[in-house]
């Protein structure tokens, strides 16, 4: 059969999978728990907490409130994006849900290759995650436009790149787990667990730099952490630059390190390029693992 007709089948299956995710209000809501919690906490006390710790760093120096607002706002949205790209990826997969609901049976009796069907689940998973991430990004940009917008075009590119690579990373990781999952309980369990916990691990609520040294070392070995730092840089480098016009360098460095805009790996500063490489290479390694496992699994099934 021609590759054109295979592509057509893949396209329609993917559209179907994406649509189902967005129509299922319950999973949709669960995957957005973290951003919602973040937003609520931010409004009620996190913003003040962040402001207080900035003030304690700049002690007495005068900074325009606009910068502070833009910084805390940027911090909020970098948190929201770095968690959502992972949590939505973990909650928007239709592969296992279809298998549990026996909805995949209709595709078994349709002239579709099993590999095309599997691929459609993964691609749909990535698309659903990207759609939500970009909607959140637009909301964030609009918010920043109101309170103080200092992002350069390059910052924006960095954010977009990080959204794409983190969504891929999260999706592939989730799908590796789904290969071994057969029950509804495990799926919604993992989805809820990741939704609830990932925010803490990636420092979405409180910066990693404020965690204990054990925790800091642990997070340094999680590729997701590198994505978080990239989001921080994309959202916050601009406003830090503006602030550096009136504040001494040590203070800017203090804020940058205190709020995870820079990452130290055993005391050494990790460059942006290195951050990009770590998350990109990790994603490709996961992809390799995923393909290998699916291939072995697929062979056993035949």
């Amino acid at each position: 059969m021609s590759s054109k007709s295979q592509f057509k089948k893949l396209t329609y299956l993917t559209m179907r999978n994406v649509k189902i995710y967005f129509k299922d209000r319950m999973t949709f809501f669960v995957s957005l728990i973290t951003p919602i919690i973040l937003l609520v906490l931010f409004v009620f006390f996190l913003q003040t907490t962040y402001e207080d710790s900035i003030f304690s760093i700049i002690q007495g120096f005068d900074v325009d409130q606009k910068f502070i607002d833009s910084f805390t706002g940027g911090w909020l949205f970098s948190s929201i994006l770095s968690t959502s790209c992972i949590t939505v990826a973990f909650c928007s997969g239709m592969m296992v849900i279809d298998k549990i609901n026996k909805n995949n049976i209709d595709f078994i009796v349709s002239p579709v290759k099993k590999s095309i069907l599997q691929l459609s689940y993964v691609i749909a998973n990535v698309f659903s995650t990207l759609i939500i991430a970009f909607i959140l990004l637009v909301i964030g940009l609009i918010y920043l436009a109101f309170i103080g917008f200092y992002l350069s075009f390059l910052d924006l590119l960095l954010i977009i790149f990080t959204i794409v690579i983190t969504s891929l990373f999260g999706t592939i990781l989730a799908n590796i787990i789904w290969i071994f999952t057969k029950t509804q309980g495990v799926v919604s369990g993992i989805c809820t667990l990741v939704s609830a916990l990932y925010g803490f691990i990636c420092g979405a609520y409180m910066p990693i730099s404020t965690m204990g040294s054990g925790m800091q070392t642990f997070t340094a070995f999680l590729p997701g952490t590198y994505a978080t730092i990239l989001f921080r840089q994309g959202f916050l480098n601009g406003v830090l630059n503006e602030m550096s016009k009136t504040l001494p360098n040590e203070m800017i460095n203090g804020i940058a390190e205190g709020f995870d805009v820079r990452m130290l790996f055993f005391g050494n500063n990790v460059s942006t390029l290195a951050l990009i490489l770590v998350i990109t290479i990790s994603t490709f390694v996961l992809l390799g693992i995923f393909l290998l496992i699916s291939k072995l699994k697929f062979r056993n099934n035949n």
Partner: protein
Amino acid sequence: MEHIIEIKNLKKYFGEVKAVDDISFSVNEGELFAFLGLNGAGKSTTINILVGVLTKDSGECYINGLSIDNIEKILPTIGIVFQSSVLDKKLSVYDNLKYRAMLYNITKNEFEDNLKFFTERLELNNILKKPLEKLSGGQKRKVDIVRALIHKPKILILDEPTTGLDPRTRKLVWNFISELIKNENLTVLLTTHYMEEATIADNVVIIDSGKIVAEGSPNVLKNRYASDYLRAYKYDKEILNILSDLKLPYKKSKNCLEIIFKNTESAKDFLVKNNKYFNDLEIVKGSMDDVFLAVTGKELKENI
């Protein structure tokens, strides 16, 4: 003549349960074939093996002369309605049908044409935009049937398609399917526990606990397995003595006497000889219910 579906010595066990236990039958092109049995007889298991949802333990199945081991080659030519719906409840009727139709080698225009044809005939065109979960049971079932037909298959497999449908809808569905059999030479393999559906079939296989217990056209089956009855409403009491002498089985109720015969022939003979004892009577041929009772020893319940 080449059989469009051929099943030879098919077996499928689930642990101790012999769901399908060495069954063989074949279906001719363009016929309505009924697979009749009680719940748990093994009907769905057989169907699911045939379309590749379940694997068989042993035996051979051919569709269009191709072994089901090459199921990909067969799938474009068959359409199936599963016992319970496998469509997406949250999606609209239109989306459900489109996303599935486009998995066959048909263009978008062909899909729209087929959709229009089937939904008009099954009276579904007003509900295309509604999500499946908002439909009535009958509407859902009709959507399942359109799904199975949307790519114009040669073979339609129906697993208890009319369970839970109201009589009017059942009639609508059957009229339409009969028309497709006549005009498009569609072959239909149907599982059912409804007698009336088995009665209109060209051929019937009766399955009980995974084994075939009878097969043939409804007429052949009735002649072979079902008794005929002579029902007398006004009669001379003397006949009871004659019946005892002849050792003929009978049932007597307040307003009628029912004499049971092996076949129509012996009923006729008896009547010719004893005509004078009867004033008002009828001879009734056995029904498929009687066939079913005779071959399985179990009552078939019409209403579930």
